[in-house]
């Protein structure tokens, strides 16, 4: 089955939107109409221009082209969303797999550890973490990942628990294959499929959380563009200079929606497969 027939029309559109944002982020220096302003160079002479050519989305309080700012902000916001998911997976997956496969005391200890993290309100924990670590992109990523990894640990554990009693895993055990090899070669590939779908669905919410942190001033620092932080900066000039907040806000909205739709389509495709 081809990727597109698997995703269906809605999924394909969502994939196209996500791909477009990725492309814009990667090629920002070439695609942004005013790359220097996107990167943060002020242009006071043209401040607060409403949307019209050549500034299609207007300019901000330093006269920077909003479109370029949003495109540059996408680099930060997208990579923070992806990084959060990757870091969480990197921590949660091994912990969940070991808990599920080893069972007994290991399972008990590791799962109670995840419970501790899950019992704490997620956004509050992230805010506290970010505040403790100080503002900055990487710190924001770590702060969110701390609240995020237990979910992957739980999912990985549940997957491994069902896979552990699969006859082919048992067969490997009966052949005297070592535990680490069983986990890596027989269990991990099968567990990765549902987890990767979940991860794709999570990039959207991760991006939202990261934007919320930067909106609160705990994310990337100016002059680096970041959607949440631009929304915050524009708040002071709302509603007269509405385009300042609306442009990055729409970007967050559209991208989060696209990721959610893509995840849905992936999950449906997975079910079609089974």
């Amino acid at each position: 089955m081809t990727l597109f027939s698997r995703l269906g029309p809605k999924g394909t559109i969502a994939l196209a939107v996500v791909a477009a944002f990725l492309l814009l982020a990667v090629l920002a220096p070439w695609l942004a109409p005013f790359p220097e302003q996107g990167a943060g160079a002020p242009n006071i002479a043209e401040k607060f221009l409403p949307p019209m050519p050549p500034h299609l989305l207007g300019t901000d309080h330093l006269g920077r082209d909003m479109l370029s700012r949003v495109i540059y902000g996408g680099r930060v916001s997208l990579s923070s969303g992806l990084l959060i998911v990757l870091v969480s997976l990197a921590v949660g997956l091994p912990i969940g797999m070991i808990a599920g496969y080893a069972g007994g005391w290991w399972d008990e200890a590791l799962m109670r550890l995840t419970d501790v993290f899950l019992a704490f309100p997620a956004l509050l924990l992230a805010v506290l973490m970010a505040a403790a670590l100080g503002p900055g992109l990487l710190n924001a990523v770590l702060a969110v990942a701390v609240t995020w990894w237990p979910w992957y640990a739980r999912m990985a554990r549940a997957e491994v628990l069902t896979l552990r009693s699969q006859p082919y895993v048992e067969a490997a055990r009966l052949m005297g294959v070592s535990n680490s090899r069983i986990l890596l070669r027989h269990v991990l590939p099968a567990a990765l499929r549902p987890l990767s779908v979940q991860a794709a669905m999570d990039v959207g919410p991760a991006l939202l959380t990261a934007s919320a942190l930067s909106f609160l001033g705990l994310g990337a620092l100016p002059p680096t563009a970041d959607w949440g932080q631009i929304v915050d900066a524009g708040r002071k000039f709302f509603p007269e200079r509405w385009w300042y907040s609306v442009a990055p806000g729409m970007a967050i909205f559209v991208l989060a929606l696209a990721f959610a739709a893509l995840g849905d389509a992936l999950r449906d495709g997975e079910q079609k497969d089974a």
Partner: protein
Amino acid sequence: MSAVLSVENLVLRYPARGLFAPRPDPALRGISLNLGPGETLGLVGESGSGKSSLLRAILGLIPYESGSIRILGEDWRQLSAAGLRRARQGVGVVAQNPFLSLSPRLTVAEILAEPLLARGDRAGPALNGQCAALLSRCGLPPDFLNRRARALSGGQAQRVAIARALALGPRLLILDEPTSALDVSVQAQILNLLADLKAEMGLSMLFVTHNLKVVAHVADRLSVMRRGEIIETGLATDLILAPRESYTRDLLGFGLRKPKALA
């Protein structure tokens, strides 16, 4: 003559389901059996007879209460983790459903290489040649090496599973309902293959099944299990002709050919 597998007075009881639940009755109530070199023992039982519990206890997958199990002279409970891994490599196991017991994502070559790599063999041309030889011994051409398990028919997949069980040159082959998921004509192919392997390699086999008629054909001796006990044991030819227990007669009496003098 030393036994390849000997089980003595085995009692197995599953733990109670809750703190105050009564202790369940034993699933196995003192099972004893012996399997000699080159012998095939058929173990027959319906659901709830305890045959699966016995099999899992023999393979060291569940603990038992009392009695002993010795495989090639060793008590697996005394072994270290590494020792257990090594001991397991000396026993080939074939499960009921080949599609479930072969890793769905691996090719036939990778599946066959798995036990060899677990023993410590190095990947390379020698290993590939060994896999091809195993495959041809089980009646499949070498071009099957590159196929994935899910692209095989039931009979082909079961041949691959048997080839994998033979990879380390085991002396004991444990077969758990190896033909129950297969069509009659394919079942005949697999039974023929097992008979050939037994003759060629002098394998001992423990053939566990619910189907008395299938195992009666290939086994030297038969043991009939019911409610955690072996109720009848004997040479296959004798037991088919003159079953002592009425339960065995019921199992044999159903269907096409009533027990009669077999040529």
